[in-house]
């Protein structure tokens, strides 16, 4: 019964104080300095040893890794599809044609992104033959050129605004890089929209073809200078349409091994985005 007896506030405060520092026994938080020292030393040694063991096992594990190719690639058998530039939230491009500040960052991102694709930047790269896989045995791996001109209207060469100011915004679609992935067939990216009365879709290169010469990819370490093949999608709004808003879906077609209908992964071989252009 005495256990439940309420202590007065002062008593418990005094007890607290004594717990924090007890001048009689020199205890701080219930331990003397020697006791603290020993227990801290114990844990220091213990954790030191544990950290050493962890580092050692990690080091051993890292030794077994290959710098060029990850040990397992079975988690990404098929590439995803992604758009560029990436809007901040979700895949919705919303801007106002009359206010450049609303699309400025898209243009900057695109310009920046396409810089490595300029002719100057690619002059050391190989001009590979079209329509065939570019398989290499090493030890040196060459990267194929991807002339930015392939993107035609969306290359930024003719229109530094990538069509945004004209209500014909460009979006880049790219297939995720996967080491040593070889598409079976001729991959092309087909983009469609249901709102055909609002806008037309154009893809560059024509028909959204991705040339086989960009495959296979040999990884960041070996395949220095690799240029990821791009497909540009231009949404050309009908100037008479009152509500300039379309949803575009792009898919990888033309191959038998690149999936585009996965139920859970909405980005496996396909991508969906929305473009809204206000006046």
């Amino acid at each position, binding site marked *: 019964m005495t256990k439940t*007896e309420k202590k007065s506030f002062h008593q418990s405060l005094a007890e607290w104080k004594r717990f924090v520092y007890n001048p009689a026994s020199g205890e701080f938080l219930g331990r003397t300095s020697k006791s603290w020292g020993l227990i801290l030393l114990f844990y220091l040694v213990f*954790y030191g040893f544990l950290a050493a063991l962890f580092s050692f096992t*990690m080091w051993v594990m890292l030794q077994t890794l290959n710098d060029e190719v*990850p040990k397992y690639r079975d988690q990404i058998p098929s590439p*995803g599809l*992604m758009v560029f530039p990436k809007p901040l939230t979700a895949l919705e491009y919303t801007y106002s044609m009359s206010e450049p500040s609303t699309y400025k960052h898209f243009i900057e991102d695109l310009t920046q992104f396409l810089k490595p694709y300029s002719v100057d930047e690619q002059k050391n790269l190989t001009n590979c033959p079209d329509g065939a896989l570019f398989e290499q045995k090493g030890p040196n791996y060459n990267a194929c050129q991807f002339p930015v001109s392939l993107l035609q209207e969306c290359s930024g060469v003719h229109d530094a605004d990538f069509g945004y100011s004209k209500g014909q915004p460009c979006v880049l679609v790219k297939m995720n890089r996967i*080491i040593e992935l070889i598409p079976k067939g001729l991959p092309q990216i087909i983009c469609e929209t249901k709102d055909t009365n609002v806008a037309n879709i154009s893809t560059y290169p024509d028909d959204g073809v991705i040339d086989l010469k960009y495959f296979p990819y040999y990884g960041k370490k070996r395949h220095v200078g690799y240029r990821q093949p791009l497909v540009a999608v231009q949404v050309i709004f009908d100037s008479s349409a009152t509500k300039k808003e379309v949803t575009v879906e792009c898919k990888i077609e033309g191959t038998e091994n690149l999936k585009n209908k996965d139920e859970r*992964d909405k980005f496996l071989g396909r991508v969906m985005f929305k473009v809204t252009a206000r006046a």
Partner: protein
Amino acid sequence: MELGKEKGTAAAHKQTLSPNTVTKTMNKSPIKTKKKKKDLEDLKKEADVNDHKLTLDELSAKYSVDLIKGHSLKTAQEILLLHGPNALTPPPTTPEWVKFCKQMFGGFSLLLWTGSILCFLAYGIHVHHSGKAQKDNLYLGFVLAAVVIITGCFSYYQESKSSKIMESFKTMVPQKAMVIRDGEKMQIDVKEVVLGDLVEVKGGDQIPADIRIIAAQGCKVDNSSLTGESEPQSRCPDCTHENPLETRNIIFFSTNCVEGTARGIVIATGDFTVMGRIASLTSGLSMGQTPIATEIAHFIHIITDVAVFLGVIFFFLSLILGYTWLDAVIFLIGIIVANVPEGLLATVTVCLTLTAKRMARKNCLVKNLEAVETLGSTSTICSDKTGTLTQNRMTVAHLWFDKTVYEADTSEEQNTGKTFPKSSDTWFYLARIAGLCNRADFKPHQESVPITKRTTTGDASESALLKFIEQSYSPVDEMRQKNPKVAEIPFNSTNKYQMSIHLLEDNSQTHVLLMKGAPERILDFCSSFMLNGQEYPMNEEMRRDFQNAYLELGGLGERVLGFCFLNLPSSFSKGFEFNTEELNFPMENLCFTGLISMIDPPRTAVPDAVSKCRSAGIKVIMVTGDHPITARAIAQSVGIISEGSDIAEGATSHHMPIGQVTSKSVKSIVVHGSELKNMDSEELDYILKTYKEIVFARTSPQQKLIIVEGCQRLGAIVAVTGDGVNDSPALKKADIGIAMGITGSDVSKQAADMILLDDNFASIVTGVEEGRLIFDNLKKSIAYTLTSNIPEITPFLLFIVLSIPLPLGTITILCIDLGTDMIPAISLAYETPESDIMRRLPRNPKTDNLVNHRLIGMAYGQIGMIQAVAGFFTYFVILAENGFKPLDLLGIRLFWEDGSLNDLEDSYGQEWTYEQRKVVEFTCQTAFFISIVIVQWADLIICKTRRNSLFKQGMKNKILLFGICEETLLAAFLSYVPGMDVSLRMYPLKINWWLCAIPYSVLIFIYDELRKLIIRRRPGGWLEKETYY
């Protein structure tokens, strides 16, 4: 609270108590509106009744009743209406729903409920602020609630099962009473008996109320359930004692009339009877928490402290790291909830249930699940004598004939082989007297029952003689047929002897006069004595020997009877009409044959049990209503007072001023109830502290309560055993009350926490052993369960601090806590003790806690950390082998968690969609989970022992081996069975990912074996002080 404070001074009050205060409150019409607290104080004071001192006329006037005709029917009806029925108010039974709620919201459950509510809160905040939210918190909230509800239902079911067994004890036969109203005898229900009723009772009846006797013939009552006296007491109309409990002219409600008849006036009914007062005193007592409940509260305290501490630290840390307030709050809740050991409530409940079942198999029925452990912590046992320590039946213990004391076999099984010279002729005479001059008889149809177990009619001592003769001489029935009884003078308290005259079998013409009775009375009749079958004239030497023998046997607390006979001369041969009123035959110059002494002997197993308690550091105190001499004799024979120790009589010791040193050699004391009455609590404390071996004799129920409180005041955890109503307040007040299943009264069973189904004190030792074992094993179980808390929390902490993908998710945590950890944790309840747990002192409830900082340090600080490192290693291996090297993971969280970012680049330049990397993340979580399972193998094995090496303890615990297999199979099942990826988001692992944790598992084992080795090598050393839990 009030109550507790006043208790200490209760004894002091008693002295100044005016004798009439209670009487007034008792005899006034009951005013039910009185404050309960006041009532309780009244009840604690000794019963104070003065009706026994009144003359019959005064009595008649007081209750306005005619002592011959009784009440008129009308008056009786009126009184019944005024005072209510003559029945005990049943103790306020807790309604079922309250019991259920207690299971649902008590102690540990509260922690889980809090966790559950916090989860819903976190989910709510999330939804409110970001619209969509991960459902994890919602699920977790539901699971936590489900866990509480399921375990709550389970333990409610368990307890209601044992309370059902309790109910089966109750006999529901309505009792009848014989009253005289309007001058007519009538049978009425006991509950219709009213104050002042004229009642008649006869042998075999239960007394219907407290009755002042006005007339009695050979009436004897068995007061054992009220006072603990094992012998029936004779009752007559005269006031013989100041104390109403000891005077002969009052008989008490619910005691039994053994023989004779009596007529009296009802002086109290229902709750106002002495029995009723004790019963309501019992139900008015509040019970303290069980030690295990205290321990669990302490444990929850520690857990909460750790959780809140971690939560707050990381709350501020996450603010410093630049998370929003909202995120920080959600992290805070997440960390607190993650600290809740979801499975532990169920584990503890199941462990206790298993022990309760095991104890029930060993005849200890536990009413309250938490009481399972209490016996293990017990440091003092206050035991009632009658029926608990003793067999509660008179048995012949010693014989004295041929000037020699012989010991009879008093064991229950009659297998001690003690014997005496049955060939002596004196024995033949003695046996004949004992068998023939005896009114007891076996009840019919008991031929198959062993003699000692047969039921008899008649007085306890006569039954004892009957059984003894039947056992060691010849069938008494036959003897009686051959020697028909022709005359008899029955025993009465003035004569103090019993005489009968029989025809002799060998010579059917002569009669023999046989007599037995109080030895000094018998000796007065004798002029000769028998030695080896020969008669010798009585001489001084014989008288001296007789005195010595009588004193010796009496000093053993035994009831001694003397036996003598006289072969009647031929003038009184067959056909003589003996007249016992006029005594027309000689009744002097008899021949003294011997003495037989009887005692209610201790149960066979008790001395052993007492010595086991001793070696287990448990103090056994005898508290009995019986006489000091008997109590002391039994105490000595069962070892409560050790042989050859000096015994201080309470009377001499307590007059000594406190503090004065009593002779050190005196460690035993017998305290009389009347002395106890005059002691204040300090004096009682002094006695309890100073003496190792204590016997309290002649104690009242209230005093039993005071003794228990005294022990508790000294910090002891007290177990009380008892069977009578008089024990029930103490049973209730004790930390664990133990009632007797066979002889125990309903009131005592109701008040008790545990019931010994075989009434055997020795079962308590089993209880102590099981209780101590479960305490140790619960420690191990908790250590095991808590350890995995660290590898469960650290992933979340590093997720916050290092911004890495979450290494272990809510679902996987639940899979560990409620899945894989469950059976192994329970299996530790089956672990055998490491050392002889009955050879160590009871735990100190203040310092030896179930969960202490050392256990937390071991589980959280050491083993848990190794486990966490093992998990992280596996996690980094899987991510690295899939392309995300450890250094690239740091700070990746925001990108990783962005569902619209579907081209996240890994260390090799590959790009991952959200779903693809989530699959890898969940694979990591599965692997982290499986790593925990693997390190928990080692943890389980090291938790088997706290001090011994595993190699000494062995792997004999089959349930534990099963547990290891089960958790592994369950882990494999969760990982590999198709569909798990959709339902639980667990993915199949490559075989080598199972192996990552193995080195750490080995490390845990080696580390702990080393630690235990050092602890064993350096007892009391630093490592033991800091890590032995």
